């Protein structure tokens, strides 16, 4: 996703008070949009994505000293963003309710936020994705939209590569079936 030199340069800048501002803006310039769309695909809502992106930025800046460079910086950023998005979804659940039960809520948000006219197929595709369990949906997004390798997705989600491959195959099939079933 990125090379080590860039990562260590970013880290040094963020840890140096005199260069932190410049370094953080450069970091967001490079990764901000990808992080935003990754978050948006998880939480769906426009305002939700804004909030989660903000929390992610705060967490990244406060925890940059814990990033040791064992994995690429982009992977670490994706992990922070994913965790923040999951926490945001958890806050929307009732007591003892799983975030997987938010499918209908997220679908309603999706329909309310669809701004492009005549894009029923894209809505249908996203609706199909929202029928997947959240962790599976995240892994699918990282592979399909962000085109990350299974190793990178494993580092972000903490799931074994084998599980991710199986889940991706299963998710793809489920999405295809949903589209086929709901296309007119």
């Amino acid at each position, binding site marked *: 996703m990125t090379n080590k030199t860039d990562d260590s340069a970013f880290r040094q800048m963020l840890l140096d008070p005199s260069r932190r501002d410049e370094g953080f803006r450069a970091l967001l310039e490079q990764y901000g949009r990808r992080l935003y769309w990754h978050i948006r695909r998880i939480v769906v809502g426009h305002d939700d994505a804004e909030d989660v992106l*903000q929390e992610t*930025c705060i967490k990244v*800046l406060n925890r940059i000293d814990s990033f040791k460079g064992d994995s690429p910086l982009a992977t670490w950023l994706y992990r922070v963003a994913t965790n923040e998005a999951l926490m945001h979804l958890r806050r929307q659940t009732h007591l003892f309710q799983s975030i997987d039960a938010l499918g209908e809520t997220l679908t309603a948000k999706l329909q309310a936020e669809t*701004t492009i006219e005549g*894009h029923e197929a894209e809505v249908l*595709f*996203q609706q199909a994705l929202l029928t997947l369990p959240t962790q599976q949906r995240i892994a699918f997004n990282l592979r399909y939209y962000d085109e990350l390798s299974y190793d990178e997705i494993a580092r972000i989600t903490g799931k074994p590569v084998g599980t991710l491959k199986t889940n991706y195959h299963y998710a793809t099939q489920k999405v295809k079936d949903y589209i086929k079933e709901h296309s007119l």
Partner: protein
Amino acid sequence: MKDESFDNIGKRLPYDESEEYLDGLLDKAAHVALQQHGKPLGRKRWGLMWASAAAVALLLMGIGFHELNDVSRQPVAAQRADGPIDEFLNSLTDEEVAQLPCYEIEEIPEY
């Protein structure tokens, strides 16, 4: 809706954001994060922490109180000393009590 398949939908999303919006959003996020960096927990977070600590203390006190006054450990009903048998026994003198027939457990016939 026409027949759609996984492949021809591709990676298009049903919503979009303008470049200006994203620039502004990232700029604002950077500004807020840099401002908040290194700041101690805000008043609201401290308030939440104190409220949580107080709730835990109250819960522990409640559990302790419950344990000390556990209803299940008390007799089902207090022993009564005002029934007719008690009144009769209370009216007896020590000598009369001594003359009451006493049975050993073995002497009680089985039903």
